[in-house]
């Protein structure tokens, strides 16, 4: 059955009898500066080195702006500004801190569309996602933590706690503004000040957020944004007066940061890679599971640390499921991130595209069977067709390594025990998915899966009230929820 659809295509004709005209989101009203400075002590300042680097749109390779590159001196200035601001911040009544955060949340909410457009331009993700997922979640995280700022006594249940001081925060390029909100909101709510470094390919929304901080008169120095690449991040993480390091990114860099901060007494949280199993039982609601599989791996081009990149299917339904999955993939629309009908946007960078291509090549070489959705890719920019591999075994590189792209590896299992064993057979432990119509089985699986988040009959759901984070080499610490607050305080007892 699988082979038939491979050679002859689908039984269904997903053609162009009625096609959608281009529906681009207007972007001309969003003002992008030609150059962005560092945001330190509430002001935009030129970098000490005088160096800038370009940021491009990965869908067109158009240079959008140039961005300041922060060096050690800039990092030092940012940390000093944050230290000073933090002292005044903790002197405020908690209710006043709360109101500042609410104000920030509201201002971001008001500017959501502008920020969504920027996010799609600079990062390549479809506007549908930046508009309907990223930005609403950004606002939700700010609102949620605003409400904690004056309720910390309750959150820590009578234990004595105190803020850490300056938090150095290093975030990735897959959810640029959302990760900024995840980092900044709990830090400020708990009485800290932050120095945040966005990823070098996606600095713009964080810098626009800086402008909003200025506009709402957030105390200067409370939020500092320094831009740059790995060296800037390393300087921040190892700065002696940074008391807390929060990092989201690859396991490889996380390992380096953990080693670099060893012995410094800095508090550390790491949210790293993943290779999540998405497990579909024969008794699952299959058509909804298909949607869940699609969302799990193709959301944000698969640039998601908790992506369901390993599909484990009960063997008895594998043939039918794969056929349906391919049909669904034929309807995915790959293209202009700013087109409202785009489902899959551009790969974030040329470097990431090369990584994806390399791992896909290894999958082919190791004997797995590749199928990519037939879609026309734009000539310029970085693109990759939604792809699945069947005939994958647990030893294949594509079953073990994080691809961080729209590539799904399909494995099969026969019993629930075998599903658990295969799902847990990885160095990662960030998330997992389970699809079954039987509630008791969902819970049984959830208990046994070694992952920080388990989704049952859903996937890639995020909410500020629900703690998120990983086990094993997916990192430590949680973000969100009451549990996420402890990453930003020292607790006695």
């Amino acid at each position, binding site marked *: 059955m699988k082979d038939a659809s491979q050679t002859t295509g689908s039984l269904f004709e997903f053609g162009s009898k009625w096609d959608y005209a281009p529906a681009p989101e207007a972007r001309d009203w969003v003002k992008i500066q030609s150059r962005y400075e560092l945001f330190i002590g509430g002001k935009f300042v030129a970098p000490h080195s005088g160096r800038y680097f370009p940021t491009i749109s990965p869908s067109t390779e158009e240079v959008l702006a140039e961005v300041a590159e922060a060096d050690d001196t800039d990092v030092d200035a940012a940390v000093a500004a944050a230290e000073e601001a933090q002292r005044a911040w903790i002197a405020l009544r908690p209710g006043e801190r*709360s109101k500042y955060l*609410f104000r920030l949340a509201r201002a971001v909410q008001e500017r959501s569309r502008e920020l969504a457009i920027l996010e799609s331009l600079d990062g390549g993700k479809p506007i549908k996602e930046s508009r309907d997922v990223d930005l609403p979640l950004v606002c939700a995280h700010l*609102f949620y933590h*605003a*409400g904690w*700022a004056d*309720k910390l006594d*309750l959150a820590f249940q009578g234990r004595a706690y105190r803020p850490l001081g300056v938090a150095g925060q290093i975030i990735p390029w897959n959810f640029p503004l959302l990760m900024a909100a995840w980092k900044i909101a709990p830090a400020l709510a708990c009485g800290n000040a932050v120095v945040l470094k966005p990823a070098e390919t996606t600095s713009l929304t964080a810098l626009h957020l800086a402008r909003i901080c200025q506009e709402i008169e957030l105390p200067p120095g409370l939020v500092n944004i320094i831009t740059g690449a790995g060296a800037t991040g390393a300087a921040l993480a190892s700065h002696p007066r940074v008391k807390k390091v929060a990092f989201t990114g690859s396991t490889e860099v996380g390992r380096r940061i953990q080693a670099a901060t060893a012995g410094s007494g800095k508090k550390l949280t790491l949210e790293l890679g993943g290779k999540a199993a998405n497990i579909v039982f024969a008794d699952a609601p299959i058509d909804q599971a298909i949607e869940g599989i699609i969302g799990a791996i193709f959301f944000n081009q698969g640039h998601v640390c908790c992506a369901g990149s390993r599909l484990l299917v009960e063997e008895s339904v594998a043939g039918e499921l794969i056929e349906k999955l391919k049909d669904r993939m034929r309807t995915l629309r790959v293209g202009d991130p700013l087109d409202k009908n785009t489902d899959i946007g551009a790969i974030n960078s040329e470097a990431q595209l090369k990584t994806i291509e390399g791992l896909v090549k290894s999958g082919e070489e190791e004997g797995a069977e590749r199928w990519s959705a037939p879609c026309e890719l734009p000539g310029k920019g970085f693109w990759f067709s939604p792809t699945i591999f069947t005939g994958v075994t647990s030893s294949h590189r594509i079953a073990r390594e994080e691809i961080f792209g729209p590539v799904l590896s399909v494995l099969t299992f026969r019993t629930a025990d075998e599903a658990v064993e295969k799902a847990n057979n990885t160095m990662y432990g960030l998330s997992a998915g389970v699809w079954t119509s039987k509630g008791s089985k969902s*819970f049984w699986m959830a208990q046994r899966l070694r992952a920080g988040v388990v989704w049952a009959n859903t996937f890639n759901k995020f909410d500020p009230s629900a703690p998120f984070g990983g086990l094993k080499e997916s990192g430590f610490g949680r973000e969100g929820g009451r549990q996420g607050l402890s990453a930003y305080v020292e607790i006695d007892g």
Partner: protein
Amino acid sequence: MNDVSHDAGQRLAVAKTYKFFVGGAFIRPESGRTYPVTTAIDSADAHHVNAPRASRKDLREAVRVAAGAWKGWAERTATNRGQILYRIAEMLEARREELHQQLVRSGSSAGDAKVEIEASIDRCVYYAGFTDKYQSLLASANPTGGPHFVFTLPESMGVVGVVAPEEAPLLGLLSMALPALVGGNVVVVITSECRPLVGLVLGELLATSDVPAGVVNILSGPSAELATELAKHREVAAIHVVADVPQTLIDVERLGAGSIKRVKGEGHVFVERLYTPRGQGLSAIERWIEPKTIWHPVAI
């Protein structure tokens, strides 16, 4: 001479008829009765002001409307409820002058009025930030052992009757209504009897604060009498009364027993605590929620 040109000194001010706020609409009392409200100073509005006087029928109607709004309010996401309560804070802040005027008219000093309004706005913000958090503080995963997931979740009760104190007519009312709303309940509020206007004006602000119709209903009238009516009403799940007369509190508790109502009666101490940390908190929310324990098997 132009018709509309006038000398401000000669212009007659337009006086306002105050109305109940029920089901998102402003309505007159069913009985047609009002009662005079003493005002401390002459104002541009009117020298003599009447407040609508609620009857049993008005109360019954307000409870019916509130009960109809309960499900929709409780089923909204916690975040959305928080956004709406925060919107109330925004509207209060934007129209604080009107509230100030009302408080001063009814006897507050300018300074006290300012303090009460600011505390009221901040109280809205405080509870707005609670809608998506009390669950993580009041819920539990229960280690019962055996092959079950057992958790206990807070659920709302339904219609909560609120009889606001005579003093602090704005902050007192909000400090009682907000925690009930946080937990997904709907409220029928009886304002301060002597100082009802600020509570009725609050209804006008709520009407522009995205609060769904029927979630908050505000009446004014003979508080003690209305409190006992609320206590008797079987559709009212819980009642919170602040009254200076101890007998009122005893009556409410006794009558509430008819439907095993959750009753909280407080005297003047409630008002004394309003400006202290004990004037707000988790306990005020917990009072109006019912924990529900769910057992679910864990098995293949």
